[in-house]
């Protein structure tokens, strides 16, 4: 059997005395996909940071592509939320995507034709081939998110981590993101998506991990997203289904 792309074993994270995550378990195979689902502050971003090796674990172990997280970073790509970035920054979409090649290019060398070709291909995969020269900040929110996904694709990752990639994204961009993520998975990359949108979790991922400090379920999307589990995870808070708020009440 292949080495799992990601293996979580009794993972716990604490910030000082505050427990952020405890007893998280699960495995993602190459080409597999899992949606991290839970309310704001549930620890989705913390888990992503832990998988990147950026926060120390209080307990348990994370294995990424058979290695410790920090040692595997070269083959892991992370896609932040586009709206956290400065829209005034003087950088073109093409330059942002080329950042995904920085590790291969090195510090001083000029980008090789292979690097430029990979960046162009990645931008094409998210449907923005003709926008390479446009300034990043002039693109729509959804297009910026697609550029950031293209940057990750250009890095040729074996594990892709996305933090709320569908927030404030229009329908066209949403479909382009889903298609590009699907394309990566066909090439064997595993995908982890933090989202609070259950419908998109359904569309994008085969598996879900229900999270609110501890784990309320991990498994195939259909079987895991049960009303009981959702109620337990959200504790009666509002949750979002394709932009509409739905209240899950305590029974």
């Amino acid at each position, binding site marked *: 059997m292949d080495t799992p792309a990601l293996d979580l074993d009794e993972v716990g994270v604490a910030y000082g005395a505050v427990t952020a995550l405890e007893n998280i378990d699960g495995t993602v195979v190459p080409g597999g996909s899992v949606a991290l689902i839970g309310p704001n502050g549930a620890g989705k971003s913390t888990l992503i940071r832990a998988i*990147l090796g*950026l926060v120390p674990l209080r307990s348990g172990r994370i294995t990424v592509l058979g290695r410790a997280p*920090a040692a595997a*970073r*070269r083959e*892991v*790509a*992370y*896609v*932040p939320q586009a709206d*956290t*970035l*400065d829209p005034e*920054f*003087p*950088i*073109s979409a093409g*330059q*942002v995507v080329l*950042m995904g090649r*920085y*590790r291969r*290019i090195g*510090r*001083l060398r000029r980008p090789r034709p292979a690097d430029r070709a990979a960046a162009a291909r990645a931008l094409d995969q998210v449907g923005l081939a003709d926008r390479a020269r446009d*300034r990043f900040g002039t693109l729509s929110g959804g297009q910026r998110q697609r550029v*950031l996904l293209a*940057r990750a694709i250009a*890095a040729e990752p074996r594990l892709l*981590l996305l933090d709320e990639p569908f927030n404030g994204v229009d329908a066209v961009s949403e479909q382009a993101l889903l298609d590009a993520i699907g394309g990566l998975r066909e090439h064997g990359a595993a995908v982890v998506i933090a989202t609070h949108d259950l419908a998109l979790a359904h569309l994008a991922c085969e598996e879900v991990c229900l999270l609110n400090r501890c784990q309320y379920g991990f498994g195939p999307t259909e079987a895991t997203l049960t009303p009981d589990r959702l109620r337990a995870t959200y504790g009666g808070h509002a949750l979002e289904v394709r932009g509409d708020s739905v209240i899950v009440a305590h029974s």
Partner: protein
Amino acid sequence: MIAPFTQPFMARALAELIVLGALAGTVGVLILLRRLAFMTDALTHTVFPGVAGGYLLAGEGGVFWGALAAGLLTAVLLTLLTRHRAVAEDTALAVLLTTFFATGVVLVSRESGYTTDLTAFLFGRILTVTGQQLTQTLAVAVVALVALVFLRRPLLARTFDPGGAEAAGHRIGLLDLAVNAIVALVVVASVRAVGTVLVIALLIVPAATARALSDRLAVIVPLAALLGATAGWAGLAVSYDASVRHGLRLASGGTVVLVLVGLHLIALVGRRLRLTRGTA
């Protein structure tokens, strides 16, 4: 505008201002994009006790090394403060700035030429730049530019997207320390020539002007360097011309800054015209 520079002291002043203008313009782009203007202002004040202490210990020759020590110490403290966020960042900066500055004032007040020294620190003495100072400025410029070239990709990644850069394995703390140290070096190199009040203008205005004129970093960086150097030359030439030909004494450093601000205003008008034409 060339004739005055045949005199050795004017030639040295010109060379110093051109090197500083180009260097500060380049580094200023980083300050602009990282929004570090206030931190830079703090640095211009915190080198003061180094200048004063260096002078007390070793005379004129100690000034550069004292400023360098204080500047690099501040760079380290600023990096640690902003990393751990024990207190709000601007509060921490303000406390650090005034503590250092007050220490400098106490040190200087022990000397008899107190106000003269303070004035020189605030406004610089560009016309008395020595060959040794020029060499030090050149050395600083080389160190800073080599560091910028070597770190340009990690710095761009960190400046644009800190979270993404950290995830990609860039050491954010070390990069921030490098930036703070580079800014400190520029401040230290500039302080005797143009003074602490004016160095902030050299660091901020050319970069802001270049940013107003272009959306491309490949244009902004060289343009900022060119604007800084040009303002240095023009400001010096204008102040010399005014005092020699017209008997009008204009402080060189101040004139340089006014030229910079004038160029900035022209650029803003130019940008407005360009935008209006673009939407018409």
